[in-house]
């Protein structure tokens, strides 16, 4: 248990001293995961909205599939993305393997189903209230999707945060497609895995604490933004 005390001291020391390597790793973690969340929202939110308001044969099957994809194991996503981006794979000519872009792609693949499935749930409930109005006004599908996403924005932010949490915490996918290359593709989780494998458990735990504080700050910032925005909206 002495590791915990040591880890807290190490974590504080790293953060307070503004350790350059740590800042680089934290920066890359944020850049990769936030970009992945942004990309996933671009795809996942409209997809979720369309699934929420349209009815077609086999919709139930699509929803079950989508919900199941929320449980995609990161290491499988990493492997699949690796096989595509590898120089022997179909997208090898893009030369993206072992770059932050590859990590963003992997994380986006991982969390798009989460964003789509959760936003489908949120928007479907909202749509129950709006359906009649849409029908009486003959609102087109794209306008309905836009209106629902806009009106559900506060709940959808939580959906995006769930995606961010998953992205920033996973290690399996970025390890394979990023390669954990120092000063290039090393992020918080791969650094933690590396220090664990070196047996430096205190440093690994210290990095873990920094990662958790980072997630806390992001969540608090989004919450604050939301409250400010809500106050402006109802003022």
């Amino acid at each position, binding site marked *: 248990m002495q590791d915990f005390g040591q880890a807290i001291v190490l974590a504080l020391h790293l953060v307070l001293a503004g350790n350059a390597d740590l800042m680089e790793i934290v920066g890359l973690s944020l*850049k990769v995961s936030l970009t992945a969340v942004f990309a996933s929202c671009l795809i996942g939110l409209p997809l979720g909205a369309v699934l929420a308001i349209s009815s077609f044969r086999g919709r139930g099957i699509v929803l079950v599939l989508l919900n199941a994809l929320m449980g995609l194991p990161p290491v499988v996503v990493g492997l699949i993305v690796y096989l595509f981006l590898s*120089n022997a794979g179909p997208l090898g000519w893009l030369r993206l393997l072992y770059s932050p872009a590859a990590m963003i792609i992997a994380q986006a693949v991982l969390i798009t189903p989460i964003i789509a499935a959760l936003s489908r749930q949120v928007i479907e409930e909202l749509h129950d209230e709006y359906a009649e109005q849409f029908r009486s006004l003959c609102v087109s599908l794209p306008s309905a999707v836009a209106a629902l996403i806009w009106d559900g*924005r506060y709940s959808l932010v939580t959906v995006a945060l769930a995606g961010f949490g998953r992205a920033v915490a996973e290690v399996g996918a970025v390890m394979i497609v990023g*390669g954990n*290359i120092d000063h290039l593709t090393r992020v918080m989780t791969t650094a933690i895995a590396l220090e664990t494998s070196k047996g430096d*458990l205190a440093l690994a735990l210290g990095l873990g604490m920094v990662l958790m504080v980072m997630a806390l700050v992001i969540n608090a910032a989004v919450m604050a933004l939301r409250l400010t925005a809500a106050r402006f909206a109802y003022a």
Partner: protein
Amino acid sequence: MLFTRTLSRAACALVFTFAASAAPGGDKSIIVQSTTSTANSGLYDEILPMFQDKTGIRVDVVAVGTGQAIKNAMNGDGDVLLVHAKPAEEKFVADGFGVERFDVMYNDFVIVGPSSDPAGIRGMQDAKAALKKIAGSKALFASRGDNSGTHKKEVALWKAAGIDPTGASGTWYRETGSGMGATLNTASGMSAYTLTDRGTWISFKNRGDLRILAEGDADLFNQYGVILVNPAKHPHVKADLGQAFIDWILSDAGQNAIAGYKLEGQQLFFPNARR
């Protein structure tokens, strides 16, 4: 509105910073597919800056097990391969994936185990005899089980000792299927014997009750080789830059850099390039 405006502004900033940093800066770099044992020892952190200072070429190291490193190199996902499993390396070259294999350096393997030493192998030099005693006493043994260079060495030693431990897999013989460090963590946690390269052992911090119990056998010799990935097979391989790295690591400068790397006063790798 304030909210969306802020959000979209943040998103734009994000996309731009990413696009800017993702654009190729025209800098020279190569990817070396290598093993966790070399990377975890800290050797690359010591010698690669020397190479970069001299040539301006940055070396990005992907550290995985030897099996995965070779597989990645076969897919063309790297310019140079630096691993330790000679038969597999020679096959890699023979199959046309690599240009030529050169000896770079060696270190050695040691058998570590709990200080209580239930199999009684302390001080033994004969690795095969030590493994026989471990198997005979059914003392816990943690195997890498991941087709890495260290794992291949371990399998070869068992074979030479005339024992097939895989039949006991899950009982006293435990395959972790993970890297050297993770396997040492496991061995430390369950007081098991394991085979490790000396470099990882010296730099490993979570030893707990584990000690070096058997060492010094010629069979425990661990040779590293370096190979340029064949540009004839994968045209985008940066053959010039990769060859520059290989020339340097085999030169006096590179070999001295390897010999000069010490951790806690001990030399970890012994250069033995044939010149």
